[in-house]
């Protein structure tokens, strides 16, 4: 059985988007949300790149490649800004969660 | 003949990688795991690079292969040194409870 690389990595990208979405909603710590957001982003890139490689004879399409490179760099700058905001928030609020999520009076809450 | 050399060398490289990972999984404490890892892996990478060195089309790629291996050794050496120093002293470290709040120790350092 021969599965094409494009198919496998495309499905992998779809699964990454789902994983990232789940993590993004479930976590309260803001850093974890930034991490999950990055997983969603790279899942989308992988999906896009796999779609650009569906015809291996023609080779990988350079236009999506260029757009993905642009996307990776923009994702990095967004991540840097988000992390700087989180550090500033932690400095002022002494917490790594948004006020509406920060019910950490019970330290073991949410832990199995 | 050249292909045979490549096959033997890459297979040997894989074996060293496998040995390194086995050490990483099986060894009991942090320091001996560090020990297993850095040596076996870089030897494995070196063997793979050596096996592929006879396949490259030109001297520029050969130079790149050598540079890659040199950089990998440099990085592994430096990180093993640095990480080993901040790892807890041997014998005290394998307490599961100590891991979760990596920040606790730091906070105590700065009153």
């Amino acid at each position, binding site marked *: 059985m021969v599965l094409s690389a494009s198919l496998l990595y495309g499905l992998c990208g779809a699964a990454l988007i789902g994983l990232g979405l789940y993590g993004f909603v479930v976590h309260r710590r803001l850093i974890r949300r930034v991490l999950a957001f990055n997983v969603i982003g790279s899942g989308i890139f992988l999906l896009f790149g796999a779609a650009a490689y569906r015809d291996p004879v023609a080779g990988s399409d350079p236009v999506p490649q260029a757009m993905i490179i642009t996307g990776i760099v923009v994702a990095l700058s967004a991540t840097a800004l988000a992390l700087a905001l989180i550090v500033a928030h932690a400095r002022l609020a002494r917490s790594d969660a948004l006020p509406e999520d920060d019910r950490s009076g019970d330290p073991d809450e949410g832990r199995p | 003949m050249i292909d045979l050399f*490549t096959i033997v060398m*890459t297979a040997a*490289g*894989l074996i060293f*990688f*496998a040995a*390194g*990972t*086995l050490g*990483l*999984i099986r060894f009991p404490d*942090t320091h001996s*795991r*560090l020990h297993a*890892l*850095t040596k076996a*892996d870089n030897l*494995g*990478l070196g063997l*793979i*690079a050596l096996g*592929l060195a006879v*396949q*490259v*089309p030109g001297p520029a*790629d050969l130079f*790149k292969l050598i*540079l*890659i*291996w040199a*950089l*990998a050794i*440099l*990085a*592994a050496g*430096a*990180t*093993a040194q*640095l*990480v*080993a*120093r*901040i*790892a*807890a*002293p041997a014998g*005290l*470290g*394998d*307490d*599961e409870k*100590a*891991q979760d709040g*990596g920040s*606790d*120790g*730091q906070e*105590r*350092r*700065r009153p």
Partner: protein
Amino acid sequence: MSSWYLLVATGLLLTIAGALWRVWRGPEQADRMMAAQLVGTGGVGVILLLAAMSGDWAMLDVALVLALLAALAAIAFVKSTRGEGEGDPEDDTPEDRASEDGAPR
């Protein structure tokens, strides 16, 4: 020959999976970080094999970048365990740090 390269590369992926197990188990941060280092070295190996397999030796540049930046994360980790990100781990020995902290990390 290309099947052989892929076979060895698949073997390397399995050793990387073993390293992932150690990242998961820990127990110390140092364990996790060093296991990540193994993934880096193994990844360089896989990329070398992929380059040989496809005959596209421009892939060596990716391995070069990966090897060059392999130490970056570990340095950032070591730095982040000191005071406010600065300082040198060699400034104090593990022994006096352990007594200072009163507990192993």
